[in-house]
């Protein structure tokens, strides 16, 4: 009989893994929701976020959680550049062009990272790496708590931005109907850049959290990138609440699967979950009929 402490501990591991999925998937959904573009290189943008935080940490030695904010800005600007000079050029020219552009970006960004930082395995040392919070029944490391709190803060900020500001409302309007938004005076091109920038910044946050919790190298983004796609399909394409629920769900399901059935099922269970959701609700949990 498994002790409740063990189950609680796995719940925490699942929740933290889920936080990274959530940050990735919400960013991906922002881009898809507004631009209807599928960016397969989202995992590589996450990797650039990790290396950007690593670079800042290496040269300044400051707290990596503080540096994460700068990294989000840097990668956000990078996302804007990719949108402006990459995706914008092929937007509306056919889905294949968008797909191949993003597939090409995977290799370009990976190779650029290898050139800049080499293939060596890196790590970011958290000042809290040895500190744990004793809750009586279980201990949680500060880094896990910070990861969960940061994710929650970022999501709350994003929610407030999207619902309480004019720019946020314009972004949602563009997501719902491009033409109508344009007729109402919204600069749709600016909204495209903004959504890509926010998506990239969220990927940078995910990359930094990942890099603080585990060693990484330029190939770190592949699996989280694939998992982020699984999450947005489970949650519903374009739905941010769907990405949050599905991301956390996937993190928890994967970790409980490892515990009960073994690691070989970790990735398979993501697709089992995906198939189950699609059979019951083809648009995903929060997806809407087109």
């Amino acid at each position, binding site marked *: 009989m*498994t*002790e409740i402490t*063990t189950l609680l*501990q*796995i719940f925490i*591991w*699942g929740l933290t*893994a889920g936080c990274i999925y959530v940050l990735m998937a919400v960013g991906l959904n922002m881009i898809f929701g507004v631009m209807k573009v599928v960016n397969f290189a989202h995992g590589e943008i996450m990797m650039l976020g990790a290396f950007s935080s690593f670079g800042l940490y290496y040269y300044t030695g400051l707290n990596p959680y503080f540096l994460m904010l700068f990294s989000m800005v840097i990668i956000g600007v990078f996302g804007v550049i990719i949108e402006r000079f990459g995706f914008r050029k092929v937007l509306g020219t056919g889905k294949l062009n968008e797909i191949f552009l993003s597939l090409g970006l995977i290799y370009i960004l990976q190779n650029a990272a*290898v050139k800049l930082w*080499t*293939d*060596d*395995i890196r*790590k970011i040392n958290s000042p809290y*790496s*040895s500190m744990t919070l004793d809750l009586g029944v279980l*201990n949680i*490391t500060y880094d*896990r708590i910070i990861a969960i709190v940061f994710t929650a803060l970022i999501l709350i900020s994003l929610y407030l931005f999207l619902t309480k500001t004019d720019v946020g409302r314009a972004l949602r309007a563009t997501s719902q109907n491009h033409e109508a938004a344009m007729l109402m005076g919204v600069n749709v091109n600016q909204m495209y850049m903004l959504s890509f920038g926010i998506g990239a910044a969220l990927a940078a946050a995910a990359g930094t959290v*990942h890099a603080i*919790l*585990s*060693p*990484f*190298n330029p*190939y*770190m983004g*592949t*699996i989280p990138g694939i998992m982020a796609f699984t999450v947005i399909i489970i949650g519903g394409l374009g739905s941010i609440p769907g990405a949050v629920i599905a991301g956390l769900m996937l993190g928890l399901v994967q*970790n*409980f699967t*490892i*515990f009960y059935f*073994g*690691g*070989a099922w*970790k*990735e398979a269970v993501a697709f089992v979950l995906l198939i189950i959701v699609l059979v019951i609700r083809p648009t995903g949990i929060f997806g809407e009929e087109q």
Partner: protein
Amino acid sequence: MKIINVKLSIVALILLVLITAGCTDTSEEGTHEVSTPEYINVGLVAPLSGGASDVGNDMKQAAVLAVEEINADGGVYVEKYGAKIPLKLVEGDTQTSPTEGVTAVERLITNENVVVLVGGFSSGVTLANQVPAAGKVPYIITGASSSQVTRRTEINTSYFFHYCSTTDDYSQPILQFFVDELKPIVAADRNLKLALIYRDDAYGKGVIESSVAYINDNSLPIELVAQEKYPTDETDFHTYLTKIAEAKPDAVYTVGFVKDTSSIYIQGQRDVGLNTVYMAVECNEDPTFYELLGKWGDGQLLESKFAPYATEYTELMGPYKEAYLAKWGEMPGMMGADTYDGIYLAASAIERAGTLDRTQVRDAIKQTNEPEMLILMEGGNITFDEYNEISPKIFIEQMFWDEETEELKPVIVLPDSLIEQDFVLPDNYEIGG
């Protein structure tokens, strides 16, 4: 009509030229004068990009060093040409992928015309990329531990030589260490409870199968309380380790590469509270492993056959370490040391063969009986047995964190012939984790 005839004549002429060219004997044996080749091409098969590129880089740096040293002396004397010929290292990047590895080896054989291949890292990748070389090109495999690379039966393995420890080689000393050194301290009156955590690939499975077989065949007093395998790209080991902690093991035997093994050591102690003895396998003998572990490696174990941080147990170690540091500005790793020896072994075999004929070079490698180099051998000499395998001397290192220098350094705790100090339990060790 006339134009058609002219065209037909031209086509016929071209065909004739092509056919005649195809019939021309271009082999060395077919020419009267033997011209000395400018270089002897040696293929380096290594993961220069992809997940294991850190190891591949070490292999490349060591190989470059060996080639430069050999060429500084004029190269390799080949009797057939009556001259010394310099070596030329041709890189074949496997990209840590079985498919890309096959392409790389095919290119080395067909385009670069290499006389011998050296390298091969990761059993899964090497088992695939040795196929195009089967029965054609001698391949000194320096970084794939699965014994299948020289014992598989579906291809001709007579050209393959295993210049590194096999999974069988290191299962034995590791398990014997647990029984002889750890059990008396923590489980004197019962079986030692051992947990296994390993990569879900040919390498991980190979080590685990050898270990389980060794325990059963020798009726070792070891109880396997947990066996967890993880996907090769895994970075989050918390749940695996939580499950292992539930089984309350006396020790955890890990079979993985640098990134995963260091994460297991750290996440196990720091996050899960599994304060036990961790043992890693030799492919982690790399400076990055020590850097990543930091103080979380204090008191923990590593099986190895090359220990650049430990005492200089062979006279070749000092000059090699110095040359490597001077050229590359970093400490050498174990896979590089195997490859360095592999290049020298290839050079020696070519010289002994007296020709660049691949079959004769293969025969010369098979007949090797030379003093050990960086990798120590049981018996002191490099020889290949009926499976084309060497008998390397394996040792166990215990790592200690130095607060003053803030560095993790190993000492050899096994075998007796090399021992620097006795094994002690890590400070944070708790019975049953």
